[in-house]
């Protein structure tokens, strides 16, 4: 807890977690909780984007405050809404669990007893006949989230900078094209981690940058050869 909270300090360290005024005034969302509803929806939606399609089953584990209050805050409903690719303001979030049932998605919720590093932690395991995936996300307040783990690998994000995850084929040149694309938009890479133990034969780049990355830039990276998926994991 202390470790996480101390990251919030900007005095001396120059660390700014909330960069935009719209992190404070916003998001527009379905109630009742920005951290437990909107944040949960965002964690679910990142999982959905990384998986790339609607899963056939999901096992969602809640820790800390999420475990104690997920029913009251509709955290369960919201995270399933995210898995269905609904945004925080999508009215369909309210019916997400029923919609998921109609789609034939098998969903289980697990209330974990262990004490997490951050009080609002969720682990999302999703899959279908072809593959499965697991990620851990935390909801840090006001609807902002961070992804801390993917398929058992800790994402070594400092949490101080915007970050993206790029799932790609393990081919020569893939990393260079992504870094060239970022350079083209004057986006400086502060830290980068490449792992080949991604999804199946996939590889994974975790890139921390100094500037905020627009959706258009993410779209451009998505269109590059050998790139499977791009997701913002911290902004």
């Amino acid at each position, binding site marked *: 807890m202390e470790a996480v909270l101390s990251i919030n300090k900007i005095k001396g360290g120059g660390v700014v977690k909330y960069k935009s005024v719209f992190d404070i005034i*916003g998001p527009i969302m379905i*109630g009742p909780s920005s951290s437990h509803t909107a944040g949960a929806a965002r964690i679910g939606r990142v999982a959905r984007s990384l998986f790339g399609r609607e899963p056939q089953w999901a096992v969602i584990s809640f820790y800390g*405050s999420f475990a104690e209050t997920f029913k009251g805050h509709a955290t369960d409903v919201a995270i399933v809404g995210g898995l269905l690719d609904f945004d925080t303001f999508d009215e369909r979030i309210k019916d997400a669990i029923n919609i998921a049932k109609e789609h034939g998605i098998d969903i289980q919720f697990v209330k974990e007893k262990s004490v997490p590093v951050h009080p609002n932690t969720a682990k999302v395991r999703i899959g279908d006949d072809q593959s499965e995936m697991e990620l851990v996300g935390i909801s840090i*307040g006001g609807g902002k989230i961070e992804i801390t783990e993917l398929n058992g690998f800790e994402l070594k994000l400092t949490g101080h900078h915007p970050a993206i995850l790029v799932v790609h084929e393990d081919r020569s040149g893939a990393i260079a094209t992504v870094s060239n694309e970022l350079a083209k938009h004057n986006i400086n890479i502060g830290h980068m981690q490449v792992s080949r133990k991604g999804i199946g034969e996939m590889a994974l780049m975790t890139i921390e940058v100094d500037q905020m990355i627009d959706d258009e830039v993410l779209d451009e990276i998505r269109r590059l050869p050998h790139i499977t998926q791009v997701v913002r994991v911290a902004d």
Partner: protein
Amino acid sequence: MFKSAAELVKLAEDQQKKISDIMIEQEQEVTGKSYEEIIELMGKNLDVMEQAVERGLKGVHSLSGLTGGDAVLLQQYIQKGNTLSGPLLLDAVSKAVATNEVNAAMGTICATPTAGSAGVVPGTLFAVQEKLKPTREEKIHFLFTAGAFGYIVANNASISGAAGGCQAEVGSASGMAAAAITEMAGGTPAQCAEAMAITLKNMLGLVCDPVAGLVEVPCVKRNAMGAANAMVAADMALAGVTSRIPCDEVIDAMYKIGQTMPSALRETAGGGLAATPTGRKLEAKIYGTPLQSRD
């Protein structure tokens, strides 16, 4: 980039600008978006806030039945013309309640800075507009001033109830609102910071103890009192009253209090009002589960 209230006030004073102008300029720098784009984005938030207040004033009820209808009661009471604390103050209170009643009913709101504390900023804005008659652009500026102070709290302390208790949510929202009211009423940047400090000082130690884990009891009424607190603190700052403890030190105190707050009082429904006999009875009734002690 400003990192503290002191830096923010100094920037505004040195450049003879308003707090809202400094926030907009910083947003332009950080995001690379134009002035017009940023104003338009905030305008969308303003519209959502206005729609939520309108909906709440017509009367909404949450699924649990714990909250709803109080905004209507307050408006009817104001109409009778016999209020003790004055129609403007109660109008702010009723509109804050309206927003949070809509939030509790899973309606659409704008988090300011969070959903559980979403009532205070719009509640006060849509009440003081009756007196100050701001333009749409001035109302949008109100949100940037509120955002500037929220930004400082979020980056130096916390705006999460699970991390810092209700003081971090409704406390922050109320301080943000107080600063924004002060600017709209013609106060100086320094007076905005005083209003924020005075408000937050009076919310220190407030725990997050939602009954049944729902963002209803006591959240809706905490927004009501947060709005009242913000209005009074803005008037105090405009009168020239200053906080002996500077704004940044109050924020730091809030952060440290949050760190030492037991987990039972940080959005776990483990203590406080959630753990009262009535709180537990309501919880059992809502979820149809047997009464149990979680202590």
